[in-house]
């Protein structure tokens, strides 16, 4: 296993994971009129995922999130597209935005919401999905694990294709990283 599997690192990362994601959410929500937005928030969340993968290992992370990153990205793309294409049904131009200023909400007080947030959230999902996919494949190949999990392999690779990474024979990786 790569990465320092020290106790301190693991504990810190487990906390940092949530802090980084809250920060990402903050970036996502303020992005409409201030610096921030879906792209940068997605990068922050993806960075949190990478840290977590270093701390608990890529396989544990796979078991934990269970979502196929490609589908996450595709879902985000679909969401962003729909937020742009939705107004077309009402006769407005593609990508027209609608905003509402809400007053006197319980707990929140004033709130400014609008369809650009849907678009930004779509972008957020696309960025997390793509970053996670790239990083997972890279980490898996450096660890000698197959680049695609079984379920993904069924979905995204051709039956005629040979895997780029050879699956390590049992015992071949023994003795590496004995920390």
């Amino acid at each position, binding site marked *: 296993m790569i990465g320092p599997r020290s106790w301190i690192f693991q504990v810190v990362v487990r906390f940092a994971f949530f802090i980084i994601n809250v920060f990402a959410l903050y970036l996502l929500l303020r992005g409409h009129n201030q610096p921030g937005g879906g792209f940068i928030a997605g990068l922050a969340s993806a960075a949190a995922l990478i840290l977590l993968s270093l701390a608990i290992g890529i396989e544990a992370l796979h078991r934990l999130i269970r979502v196929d990153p*490609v*589908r996450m990205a*595709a*879902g985000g*793309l*679909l969401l962003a*597209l729909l937020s742009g*294409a939705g107004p*077309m049904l009402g006769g*407005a*131009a*593609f*990508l*027209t*935005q609608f905003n509402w200023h809400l007053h006197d909400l319980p707990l929140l007080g004033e709130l400014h919401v609008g369809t650009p947030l849907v678009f930004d959230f779509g972008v957020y999902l696309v960025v997390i999905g793509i970053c996670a996919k790239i990083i997972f494949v890279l980490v898996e190949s450096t660890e000698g694990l197959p680049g695609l999990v079984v379920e993904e392999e*069924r*979905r*995204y*690779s*051709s*039956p*005629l*294709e040979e895997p780029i990474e050879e699956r390590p024979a049992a015992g071949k990786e023994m003795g590496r990283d004995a920390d």
Partner: protein
Amino acid sequence: MNAAVLPFLLPLFTGTLTLFLGKPGTARRAFLVASALVQLGVAAWLIAENLAGRPHVLLAGGWASAVGITLVADLLAAIMVALSSLTALAAVLFTCFESRPRLEHPLRLPLVQFMVAGINLAFLTGDLFNLFVAFEIMLIASYALLTLEADDWDIKQAYPYLAINLVGSTLFICAAGLAYGLFGTLNFAGIITRAADMSGDPRILVLALLLLVVFGTKAGLFPLYYWLPNSYPILPAALAGLYSGMLTKVGVYVLLRMFATVLPHDLSGVHQLIAWLAGLTMVLAVMGALSRNFIRGILSFHILSQIGFMALAIGLFTPLSIAACIFYVIHHIIVKASLFLVGGVATVLNRTDDLDRMGHLWRGTPWVGIVFLCQGLSLAGIPPLSGFWGKYLIIVEGLRAGEYILIGASLVASLLTLLSMLKIWLAAFWSEPEGVAVRVDDWRWRPLLGVVGGLTVLSLGIGFGAEAVMQVALRAAQAALDQPGYVELVLGAGGKGGG
């Protein structure tokens, strides 16, 4: 109003939804074919609207062209969109008939849709930076498609494609920066208005040259075509048809759009340069074609040689030569795609496309030969096939402009084209070597030939109905050259926030 975005949105939706549909199967294929048909229908409707004098303009989000992104579906853009939808349909059908669903790569058809979305956006956009975005969508999808089913050797061949296109993209973004510094806007209509006041400014010349380098690279003009002839042959036939038909033609279209619509018309030095580069491209590339000994390799060099003809027409820069260029693009996309596809059929029949190990095709499957003959001779420019009319008009315009050397070069290139088509014909169809079998028992060749046959009928129609197609091309050329009309069209769309 929104119709202008449909050719971009539909393939993007289709590609994304397909990712959720799971493994390739009959239902998924039916969905993709249906979507390709709808896209073709939308494109045909856009052409009809333009012919009725109603070009569509979309201001994204309702923002005026000065602050937002404009999409303009004028006649030229609509024609190009129709051609890309047509070749995409052919690629999808060819993929469907080429292999059983179980053996199809699950990502091939979604990526085709993403690439088509990028290509269509490049045709429709009225904004230089948006054009860059369109190029990136198209190129990233094309990098993935190029290497999707490739082995180690193929990936090595794809490397120059990746490298030179990255350089091209970097130069493109530099050019866009320069344009923004010069004009304070990247909207085409804005650039036209501002450039009118800056006539003779040498910085416009620099921008024009930079754009020529960028789009000349994408189109494959001499001396920037090195990336193409080795990378295209690694594609499977269905995709090779789409790549050869559309990708380089996006470069030609953008050159046309830039020099005819956006940049001032008094850049005669640059036009002359384009014409000479075109002449060199034609002759050198066709010699490259003669040197190859497998079908896809020969055809890949021919793409470049034909790009030379189109660029020569742009370089001559008269209204008639621009119309001839549009006619030539229409003819070339269909013929080139179907030649690659017919090469694919021959490969299915002979199990190889190495000319030394092919043969017997004429006796075994005469219809494949007839289709190849129609399209090959059309490519060489034999009357009354479609290729003849485009070349004829370009040559007439060239003689009028007194460019005798370039016209001579184009005639030599045509002859050599015929020669290399004969090389394929003699080796694959006419020769009957020992030990080569024609696998007519393979169920796939009939439906595959059906797809190519459809394209061939269309290209024969262009040849025999050249008058009608030429009228459409003339109108498209007039609309593309009409700078005040373009500005009026875009600014007339109104929108909020324009100052």
